[in-house]
C-alpha cells in the first residue's frame, strides 16, 4: 500500500493538501502541534495512488513525504 508520511511539527494546517487530494486520503487531525497549528492526518492508505499532488501543493519542504509501494530487491 502507498503511504503519505506527515511530519506533524512541520505542518501549518493550511489544508491545501486536503483540498487537492483526488482520493480524499487526508483530513485535519483535530490535534495541535508544537507551533500551535492543527496538523493534517493521512488515513486512507487503500485509496492513495501516490500521485504526489499533496506533496507538490504543500508549501512546506518536508511536511509530507509520499511513499509508493513497489517491488524491491
Amino acid at each position: 500500500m502507498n503511504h503519505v508520511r506527515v511530519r506533524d511539527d512541520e505542518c501549518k494546517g493550511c489544508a491545501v493538501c486536503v483540498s487537492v487530494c483526488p482520493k480524499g486520503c487526508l483530513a485535519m487531525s483535530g490535534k495541535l502541534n508544537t507551533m500551535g497549528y492543527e496538523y493534517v492526518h493521512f488515513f486512507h492508505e487503500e485509496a492513495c495512488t501516490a500521485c504526489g499532488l499533496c506533496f507538490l501543493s504543500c508549501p512546506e519542504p518536508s511536511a509530507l513525504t509520499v511513499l509508493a509501494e513497489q517491488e524491491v530487491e
Partner: protein
Amino acid sequence: MIGQVQKFGKSDSFYDTYERKGEGEQSTHYCPGCGHGTIQKLIAQAIDDLKIQDRTIFLSPVGCSVFAYYYYDTGNIQCSHGRAPAVATGVKRTVKDAIVISYQGDGDLAGIGMTEIVHAANRGEPITVFFINNAIYGMTGGQMAPTTPLGRKTLTTPFGRDRDRDGMPMGMAELMQAIAAPVFIERCSVATPKELLKTRKAVHKALQNQIDNKGFSFVEILSPCPTNWGMSPVDARTWMDQQMTLLYPLGNFRDSVTKQDDRPGDQEEPLWLDDEALVDLLKGASDVPVMRMEPLSETQRVKIAGFGGQGVLSAGELVATCGMSEGLAVSWLPSYGPEMRGGSANVSVTLSMEDVGSPLVDHPNVLLVMNGPSLDHFEDQVVENALVFVNSSIVTRKVRRTDVRTIYIPATDLAQEAGLVSAANVVMVTAYLLLSKAIPLDTLKRCIPLVLRKKAFLEKNLSLVERTMVYLQENGMV
C-alpha cells in the same frame, strides 16, 4: 518482495535544517498556505532533477521571500529591492557557467525594480526569472502592488484600487512579450493541481533554457497570499482560479529556439576585454610620468570658473593631470548646470602632498575666472592671500578684494593671436602654474597631449604656453 520507496520528498537542494530561528528548524517562515513555499519547492525539485545544485546562484529579492538563502543549499545573493536582474547580469557575465535564478515578487519586479527587469529582458541576458505575482506587497503588510486588481481593497487603497487614481493592473508577461529578446515567456499558477503541474514544467523549461544558454526566460507565477488577501489558503486558491486568471490569462506567450532579433541594426562584434587589457586600461595613467622633486609649499585648492564651452572642465583636468604626474594626490570635481554649453560651469581641483579627503573646494586659494559672472560669484569665497587670475579679455571690471594677489591676463586674445579659438584655458593654467610654481612648466607641456582632445592642435597649444610665458615676462609678472 513488496516494499515502500520514497516517490516525493524533500529536495536535496534544500538545507537539512534552516538555522534562521534556531537550531534544527525544519519549517519555513512563510504563513500557512503561502504560494512562495510551494513555488520554491518546485524550483528546488527542478534544480535536483537537472543536477545543477552546485552551479546555481539563487538571487533572493526584498519581500517575503527574502530569506530564501536560509533554504536553498546553492549559491545565494540577497539583492536590494528590485535590483536582482542587474545583479544577475553581473553574476552571469562574470561566471558564465553559473545558473542564475532571479526570484522576485510583484512589488519587487513590477514596482521598484521595473527598470532592471525591462532592461535585462531587452538585453536578453541568459538568466531565468521567476516572477511571483501575488498582487500585493506581502512583507510590508498588504499595500497595493502594480499587479493589484481594480477595485481591490488594500492598505493603500482602502476604497479599492481606482483606475484613474492608481492606474491599471500591470500584465508583466504581456509587457515581456512586447520585448524581442526573451526566448521564453509563460504565465502559470499554483491555484489547482493541474496548473501546478504546468508550472512545474515551465520552471523546468526555463532552467533548461539557461543550461542550453538560449537566452532570457521569464516565468510569471500567480501565487496566493492568504494573509493579506484575508482569505483561507483554500479560498485564496479558488479565488485565483476563478478571478485572478481573468485578469492574468495563463499560458505560454513565447517559446523560441533562439533569441529573436527582429529589429534592424548592425551587429558588431562586442569588445571583450581580457584581464590583461583591463589592467592596461586601468594603468592608462602609467603614461603619466611620476617624478616629483620638490614638495608643494601649500595645498592647492583651485577653483576654475567660466561659461560652458570655455574649457573650464578641461582646464581642471589639465591641472589635475599635472598634479598626478608629479605624484601628488589630486581630486577633480566638475559642477555645471543642465546645459553643458553656454551655462556657467566650474571645477574644483585639489593638489596635495597628502590624501585628499573631500574634493569640494569651498574656499579656494587659487581662482581662475574666465568670465564676469564667475568673478562676481567666487570673488568673496577665496581666502586671504589667494591667487586670483582674471581673463581680462572678457572680464571688464577689476577685482574688489584687496587682500588677494590679482593677475590680469588677456587670455582669450592671446589664444586667438595664436590661431586657437578656445584655448584661453591653456593660457590661464599656464599663468597659474608659472606664478604659483606649483608645477614645473615641463610637466605641463608633457601633460597637454594627454588631455587635449583635438590632437591636430597640439603644436599650437604648446607654442601658446611659450607665448604666455613671454607675455608674463614682458609684463614683469614673473
